[in-house]
């Protein structure tokens, strides 16, 4: 893996582009609730705000490494090379969706692109990712597993049990604790003992005697650096690490939960709606990871305004295509529902 200082222009622009792709994809999802109400069912969670953290982490991957996030899962496969058309179609419940309409937003999966699948039940996928790392170790594949989960999820027993086992067995896995300050309506200060005591959440690593680091999750290169070290450590057989990546979720937890036929949509962020903290939200927005990276790339001459515009347009066109593709795709035939129960 390259040092962050040595990243070539191409690679930097690739990272920047992935961040834009995630953002634009999520924007289109969000707009769907307004433009095509009822098209997206159930519960959908967006990753805007997490772009630097996702891309910085996954930019450290080797070819066959796996990404295993939670139900807030749109960002990762975008970086891994999954078709955004199929992703959009899945979230729209269509036959051409990634999972043929069986999974929806919370259960995207694309094993062919190193994305084996997710769980909607908090903390449980941390164990699944740990199991994937066991496969890598038993079969000696050289893979590293990138496991992502939220600040709230780090209070689920599965987190603790999994990290202990990964540490004892020295499994090749990097645990990225995405601290976006909230679990649904709850601010981390109300439910995390470390935070309540003024300590970083990465201190939980001490319960497993593994490295625990907190990193600015709005800075894609810092994430790249810290996750990179952890990945190298994992690949070298020295076991897991816990990286607390701190950033802010820009959208509300998910679309409003309403009983059909009441139309659903995205409410305001909880900082505003529940706590009335407009300043907190504005301050977080000011640290937008995409803005920051763009400014840096423009400043260092890696990116020109023209190039930026071109990238933005390409990304916009891609997601426009994705929406069109999804809308045009047929629904699965009802009788298909009995497929895939057993292998």
């Amino acid at each position, binding site marked *: 893996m390259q040092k962050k200082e040595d990243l070539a222009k191409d690679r930097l622009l690739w990272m920047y582009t992935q961040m834009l792709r995630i953002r634009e994809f999520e924007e289109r999802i969000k707009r769907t609730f307004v433009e095509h109400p009822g098209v997206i069912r159930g519960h959908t969670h967006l990753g805007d705000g997490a772009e630097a953290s996702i891309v910085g982490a996954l930019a450290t991957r080797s070819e066959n490494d796996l990404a295993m996030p939670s139900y807030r899962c749109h960002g990762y496969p975008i970086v891994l090379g999954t078709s955004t058309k199929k992703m959009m179609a899945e979230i729209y419940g269509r036959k051409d969706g990634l999972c043929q309409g069986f*999974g929806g937003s919370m259960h995207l999966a694309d094993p062919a692109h190193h994305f084996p699948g997710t769980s909607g039940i908090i903390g449980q996928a941390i164990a699944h990712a740990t199991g994937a790392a066991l496969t890598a170790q038993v079969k000696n594949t050289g893979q590293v597993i990138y496991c992502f989960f939220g600040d709230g999820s780090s209070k689920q027993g599965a987190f603790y049990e999994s990290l202990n086992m990964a540490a004892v067995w020295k499994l090749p896995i990097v645990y990225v604790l995405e601290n976006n300050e909230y679990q649904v309506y709850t601010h981390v200060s109300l439910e995390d003992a470390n935070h309540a005591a003024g300590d970083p959440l990465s201190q939980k690593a001490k319960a497993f005697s593994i490295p625990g680091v907190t990193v600015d999750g709005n800075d894609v290169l810092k994430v790249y650096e810290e996750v990179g070290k952890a990945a190298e450590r994992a690949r070298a057989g020295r076991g897991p690490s816990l990286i607390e990546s701190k950033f802010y979720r820009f959208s509300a937890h998910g679309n409003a939960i309403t009983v059909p036929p009441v139309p659903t949509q995205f409410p305001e962020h909880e900082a505003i709606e529940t706590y009335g903290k407009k300043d907190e939200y504005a301050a977080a927005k000011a640290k937008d990871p995409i803005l920051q990276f763009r400014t840096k790339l423009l400043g260092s001459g890696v990116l020109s305004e023209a190039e930026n515009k071109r990238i933005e347009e390409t990304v916009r066109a891609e997601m426009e295509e994705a929406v069109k593709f999804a809308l045009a795709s047929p629904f699965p035939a009802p009788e298909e529902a009995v497929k895939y129960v057993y292998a």
Partner: protein
Amino acid sequence: MPREMMYGEAIATAIVEEMKRDGDVIFYGQNLGMTEKDHMVRLFGKNRVRITPISETAEMGIAVGAAMTGLRPVVELWMSEFMLVAMDQALNEAPRLRYMTGGQVKVPLVFKAGYGFGAGWAGQHSNCIYHMMMGIPGLKVALPSTPADAKGLLTAAIRDDNPVVYLHHYMLTLDRGEVPDGDYVIPFGVADVKRAGSDVTLVATGWMVKKSLAAAEVLAKEGISVEVIDPRTIAPLDVQTIVASVKKTGRLVLVDQAPRHASVAVIIAGEVAEHGFQYLKAPVKMVTALDTSVPYSEPLEKFVLPDEDKIVRAVKAAMARQAATV
């Protein structure tokens, strides 16, 4: 004087009234009472209304310990499947402690959760898992289908000295209905005849009661008189009322949102095979979810879940079947 209320409102009202009535009742769960502005916090303070981390095992286990020592916790668990990460507390701790201690402790608590999110919540959030809580001696389970039942059963649950799993159906949250005022308590183990009829007995819970009543309406127009029974609690289960109805109608159709072997339907069918066999003029008929997880996409989901049409068809099939010739 009865008051019209939404199902969700009836639930909230029961909690507030019981907390006013009894200072030992506490209420906690995830994403509750974040700030001082919260309605419940304003009424009862942060000592009795608490927010918890995503730690179901601790949330539920703490309720067990608190109940053993003098509180009456009501735990908001949001979606019944979340209990699966901590099922031991609901099934192997709360209901067994009294028995194992030879009656020395009691464990009065309510695990409250929504279920049956048949609206695109897909494979892990939409399931009906109430069958797991049946056959667990010491545990009671309520599945209200109307605002009045929601209020009366929750009040009973909070006052009960035993652990109760109270499951309210997501799809009914906004439904309106009359709720008797004041101290309204529905005893557990008493089924309710939601619609009287004479040709066929139809048993259902939760959302399926609504669908069954709609189907009964359609069938009435075709001259088939359907008696719709809602057990309301599935532990204890009022088999007697069902058998009495079958004695009258001779025919039994069971509707359930769960897959067949996870259904209350199949359990009732089994009970009637033992206790109501002599009254049956035709085989029991079940309308359950298909044997799949719940898929995301709407047409798939519709195909899997029971609906009015399927119920109508099942009742007609039951009517068409001749009496068993033995």
